[in-house]
């Protein structure tokens, strides 16, 4: 039996981007469905859960139950095991995303959105090249056709909705980080410090991380570049890392996932459609961080969408306002992060070792990422040619 519904907007995916967009739409009085294929929002999340506190506070008022741990320092490990410690100018936290994501979705519902769980988007209703709605499959496999003038594709790294509207968001192998992570317990008292491990034998084309969650627990994971995958899987690299670096810990749970490390989609919209978050490849290509760009894009898309619906203009011209807003806010710097990523993944282990050595020889003192980068640059001047666009007067294209 097929049911038909009619709403103003459907948001596919109830992660941070989708929930934020649905909240903005509902706040402006729009009738919106927020759908997610999972049985529960925030379960599972494929995420190391680290995020900058200040960045997060631009979008939400922090709740203590969202925070698993407060971070006071960062340590970077070179391939040979030497490490440098960064003094924190930006505070970081490790989130409990199960609670965080759940609360964001609840916020959307409280604003008036209708949350449909165990609901899968199986296709787009198109009319003359314009998105007119979405085909859904409910918890018992029942088919629901939802007419909606606007669809927001917030369906994550595995995104389909944008493709169905003709936007090719396929990731090149060099533009995906393939990740695996254990939640580990039984650890020696874990300091309030995020650790990053680099090295071709550790995590080729990426890095391993240890992010504290509690006094004796941590997210321990790594990402490898898609173009270094094949010989060994991400999980195989992770098991080797855990055995070497955290041998006494207990593996309590496991999650795998992909992280886009491409440029964000140049055109994250189509008639009647907006694409946000990981689905729009809006994660930071250098760090892999996706929470903040998801929140930013969700806000921008929700606001542009509400305006477009009120004006009854869902054309490309109308929705292009979203793309321009994104380009003005995070877009430019995220294009730069991509170029940095492309340069940094090419740094050989010897350069990273020499960088750590030079920084340690200088002694402690205010060490930040900029000083680390400048030291790496001195060790490998060719790096400047790779990232020359960063130094153009207008800040690059």
């Amino acid at each position, binding site marked *: 039996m097929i049911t038909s519904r009619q709403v103003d907007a459907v948001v596919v995916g109830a992660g941070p981007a989708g929930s934020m967009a649905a909240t903005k739409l509902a706040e402006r009085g729009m009738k919106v469905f927020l759908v997610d294929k999972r049985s529960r929002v925030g379960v599972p999340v494929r995420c190391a859960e680290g995020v900058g506190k200040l960045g997060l506070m631009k979008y939400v008022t922090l709740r203590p139950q969202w925070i698993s741990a407060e971070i006071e320092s960062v340590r970077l490990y070179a391939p040979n095991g030497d490490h440098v410690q960064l003094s924190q100018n930006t505070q970081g936290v490790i989130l409990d995303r199960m609670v965080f994501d759940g609360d964001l979705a609840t916020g959307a519902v409280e604003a008036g959105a209708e949350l449909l769980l165990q609901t899968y988007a199986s296709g787009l209703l198109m009319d003359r090249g314009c998105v007119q709605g979405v085909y859904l499959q409910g918890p018992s496999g029942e088919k629901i056709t939802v007419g909606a003038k606007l669809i927001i594709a917030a369906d994550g*790294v*595995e995104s389909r909705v944008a*493709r169905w509207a003709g936007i090719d968001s396929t990731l090149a192998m060099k533009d995906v980080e393939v990740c695996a992570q254990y939640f580990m317990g039984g650890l020696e008292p874990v300091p309030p410090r995020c650790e990053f491990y680099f090295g071709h034998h550790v995590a080729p084309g990426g890095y391993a991380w240890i992010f504290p969650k509690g006094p004796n627990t941590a997210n321990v994971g790594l990402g490898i570049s898609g173009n270094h995958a*094949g010989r060994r899987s*991400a999980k195989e690299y992770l098991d080797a890392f855990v055995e070497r670096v955290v041998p006494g810990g207990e593996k309590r749970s496991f999650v*795998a996932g992909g992280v886009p490390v491409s440029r964000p989609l140049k055109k994250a919209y189509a008639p009647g459609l907006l694409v946000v978050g990981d689905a729009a490849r809006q994660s930071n290509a250098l760090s892999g961080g996706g929470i903040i760009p998801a929140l930013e894009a969700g806000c921008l898309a929700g606001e542009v969408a509400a305006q477009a619906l009120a004006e009854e203009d869902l054309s490309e011209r109308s929705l292009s306002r979203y793309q321009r807003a994104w380009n003005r806010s995070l877009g430019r710097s995220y294009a730069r992060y991509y170029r940095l990523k492309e340069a940094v993944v090419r740094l050989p282990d010897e350069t990273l070792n020499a960088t750590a050595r030079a920084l340690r020889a200088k002694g402690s003192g205010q060490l930040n990422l900029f000083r680390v980068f400048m030291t790496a640059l001195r060790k490998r001047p060719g790096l400047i040619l790779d990232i020359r666009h960063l130094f153009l007067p207008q800040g690059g294209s």
Partner: protein
Amino acid sequence: MIIFRQDLCDHCGTCLSVCPQDAIVLYEREIYLVEERCDGCQRCLIVCPVRAVEVQR
């Protein structure tokens, strides 16, 4: 012929993100190949973080 190991798959969707043919369907806990769309490029097999993709001749 691409085979997905349902017992090993973590349903992370990384394979979908690199598939140029939109040949993979992923539900919350099930994954399927759309055989007629697959051109055998094996990107899914190469990236899979848990080796849940195999090729059978």
